[in-house]
């Protein structure tokens, strides 16, 4: 009798547990069904006859009422207070609909593909084009009817290109560009030689030669090293593919063929890209062994501040970090915070990258100069396919990419906007980057998933190349053009193998 009772109890508990699972699964279905329908909608949108018709299935045009949308922003925007301003302004503007935008409160690099299907991802996310476009294959983000947005005409086609996907002859845009990321040169004005205006300004344009050409930078780096041990000119981790590959692109190299869409055509060794590798090798000879790995990337902030380095190359979004370190360094010299800040803002210069000698010989006198084609990215807003309020999300994206908000973003974060009107209004670096993008001197990171496979082989090569500068003359691996070409060809082969060996193609 007692046993029977136990069995009955166990049975009831099992039923309760299973129904609990069902309930939860159902609960999740609610989310999941949003997700599923979203997935279906996306699929329809991507494979249907007309983009506008299919997108209207997602964006009905009627704002959802009393909803909370979770927005994933980058840490700098949160830290500098821009994001709070943005959501406050949006919430005020959409108060009558009861739409509230909140911080998703997640890691800025969190993966929507992991969290979205289970209902824990953000509704709107601000990430780089290569990251956002990775979500497209898994249908994790919705296409956006960008033609209807106010910012559409203001953003150049090259920026839209980063988010464009052609499917069955129909073009879809998967996110809205906000910010152009590319390499910039940072240097300390107060570390220029006193006589730079007479000795280091050959063209008399008031800009020091060393920040205009890599050849002059090479000469200046050599001079600084000779002047004092442990002091350097230009410093950069060669290991970093994002920056080092720029030198290959400038001499004919590329990542993928057919405008970065054909992964079977690898181009790290294309054209005369070996000349770019040769430039890197010459630069590494005037650095320390920190250029082999990530050391310089990490220590550049404090080393530029203490005067050990004269210049480095990195992205514009870290300007505030350099500034912060320089202010601390000046304060350490006994200045007040205000004095230190004023001096740091005057002496820390962020400008466009120098030009390269066409011959790739940094020691050549009066070389013909060509522009450095830097690798870049476009950060933008995407809309999760798991959101329950796509119309509210679209409203948020439109609001966040409006002239006023992008202008405010520029003022607070010093970003290079994708909007032409803001770029021209701001002038300076913002306009400079915008022009580089327009002129094709910013090579956008490929927006296809195969891009994941380029980093490790290329990192290994650049690391080995940097190491070569510290090898004994008889042991050098890259001491002639053929060896450089062979090294780059091997990079292409390794990437190709990584992409296709297990793909069955």
């Amino acid at each position, binding site marked *: 009798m007692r046993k029977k009772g136990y069995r009955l109890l166990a049975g009831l508990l099992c039923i309760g547990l299973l129904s609990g*699972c069902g309930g939860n699964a159902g609960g999740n279905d609610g989310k999941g069904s949003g997700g599923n329908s979203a997935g279906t909608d996306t699929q329809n949108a991507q494979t249907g006859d007309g983009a506008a018709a299919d997108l209207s299935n997602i964006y009905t045009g009627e704002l959802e009422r009393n909803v909370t949308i979770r927005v994933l922003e980058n840490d700098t925007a949160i830290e500098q207070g821009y994001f709070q301003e943005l959501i406050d302004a949006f919430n005020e503007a959409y108060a009558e609909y009861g739409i509230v935008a909140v911080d998703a409160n997640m890691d800025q690099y969190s993966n929507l593909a992991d969290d979205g299907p289970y209902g824990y991802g953000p509704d709107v996310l601000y990430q780089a084009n290569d990251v956002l476009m990775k979500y497209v294959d898994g249908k994790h983000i919705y296409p956006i009817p960008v033609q209807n947005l106010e910012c559409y005409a203001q953003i150049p086609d090259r920026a839209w290109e980063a988010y464009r996907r052609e499917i069955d002859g129909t073009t879809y845009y998967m996110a809205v560009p906000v910010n152009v990321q590319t390499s910039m040169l940072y240097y300390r004005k107060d570390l220029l030689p006193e006589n730079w205006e007479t000795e280091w300004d050959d063209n008399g344009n008031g800009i020091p030669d060393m920040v205009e050409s890599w050849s002059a930078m090479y000469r200046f780096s050599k001079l600084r090293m000779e002047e004092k041990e442990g002091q350097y000119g230009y410093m950069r981790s060669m290991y970093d593919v994002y920056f080092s590959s720029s030198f290959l692109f400038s001499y004919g190299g590329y990542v993928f063929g057919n405008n970065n869409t054909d992964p079977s055509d690898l181009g790290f060794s294309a054209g005369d890209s070996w000349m770019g590798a040769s430039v890197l090798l010459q630069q590494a000879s005037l650095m320390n062994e920190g250029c082999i790995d990530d050391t310089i990337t990490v220590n550049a902030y404090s080393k530029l501040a203490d005067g050990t380095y004269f210049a480095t190359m990195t992205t514009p979004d870290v300007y505030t970090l350099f500034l912060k370190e320089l202010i601390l360094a000046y304060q350490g010299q006994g200045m007040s915070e205000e004095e230190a800040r004023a001096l740091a803002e005057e002496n820390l210069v962020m400008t466009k990258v120098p030009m390269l000698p066409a011959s790739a010989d940094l020691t050549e006198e009066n070389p013909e100069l060509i522009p450095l084609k830097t690798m870049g990215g476009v950060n933008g807003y995407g809309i999760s396919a798991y959101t329950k309020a796509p119309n509210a999300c679209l409203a948020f994206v439109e609001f966040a990419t409006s002239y006023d908000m992008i202008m405010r973003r520029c003022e607070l974060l010093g970003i290079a906007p994708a909007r032409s009107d803001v770029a021209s209004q701001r002038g300076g670096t913002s306009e400079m980057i915008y022009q580089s993008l327009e002129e094709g001197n910013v090579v956008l990171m490929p927006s296809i998933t195969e891009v994941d496979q380029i980093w490790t082989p290329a990192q290994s090569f650049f690391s080995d190349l940097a190491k070569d500068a510290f090898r004994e003359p008889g042991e050098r691996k890259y001491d002639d053009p053929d060896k450089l070409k062979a090294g780059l060809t091997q990079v292409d082969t390794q990437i190709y193998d990584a992409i296709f060996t297990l793909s069955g193609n």
Partner: protein
Amino acid sequence: MKSTKTLRVMDTVITHVILVAVCFVFLFPCLWLILASFSKSGSIYSFDGFFPSEYSLDTFKMLFTDTDMYNYPRWFRNTLFIASMSCLIGTFLVILTAYTMSRFQFRGRKTIMKTTLVLGMFPSFMGMIAVYIIMTQFGLINKMWGLILIYSSGAPMGYLTQKGFFDTIPGSIDEAARIDGATNFQVFLKINLPISMPIIVYTALTSFVFPWSDFILPKLLLKEKDLYTVAVGLMSLGETEFARFAAGSVFIAVPIVILYFCLMRFLVDGMTAGAVKG
């Protein structure tokens, strides 16, 4: 005689040299981190050789006051809550499991023991994907109780040490108590538990320390920054936040040290209890 003395001296010297070398390997990184956390500049690259050139408490001050982006006090509270609850529930479950396995004979006991022994050989992260999916089904993602549940329910798997301890307590004591009319629960509570203090303390310490320093599970289950534990939070710091990382890593040891000093008395008392017969 003289050579024996020489040998003894040599033995002492060599032993001490080896001990000092081993200590150096273990202690140097800790010492370096502690000193680095007091660095005035906060940057690893401004050190004078291995150690900071100037010292201050600014980093610790910043750790607890500059909380806009990196809310260390909150991470600390979260970790303390998760570790404390896991410790309480986990210790209770482990002791019960071990006592049951040690004192009672029932069908399937051996099979359960063998199964747990085999299951214990697999690394805990092996089931992470399954854990994640189960937690999503139960709606326990982004919930600290989800983590507590996993830590506590997993704890009894490691009951063998505790069972070994209970096995050393003579069964005749239980029989004597039962003859005097004690129930199973009374035997456990009034006879076995008081003389098992060392193993309870040991269990509590290990049950606390594992959740306290774990990274994989909180990283998997806690998506929101406000719910981060110290381990996850420290890993999310920006690349220029070395000073904060060092100070945070040093401060995380404080509760463990306090707990150890508080519980050490019970550990020693328990071990010496009954050692001297009257």
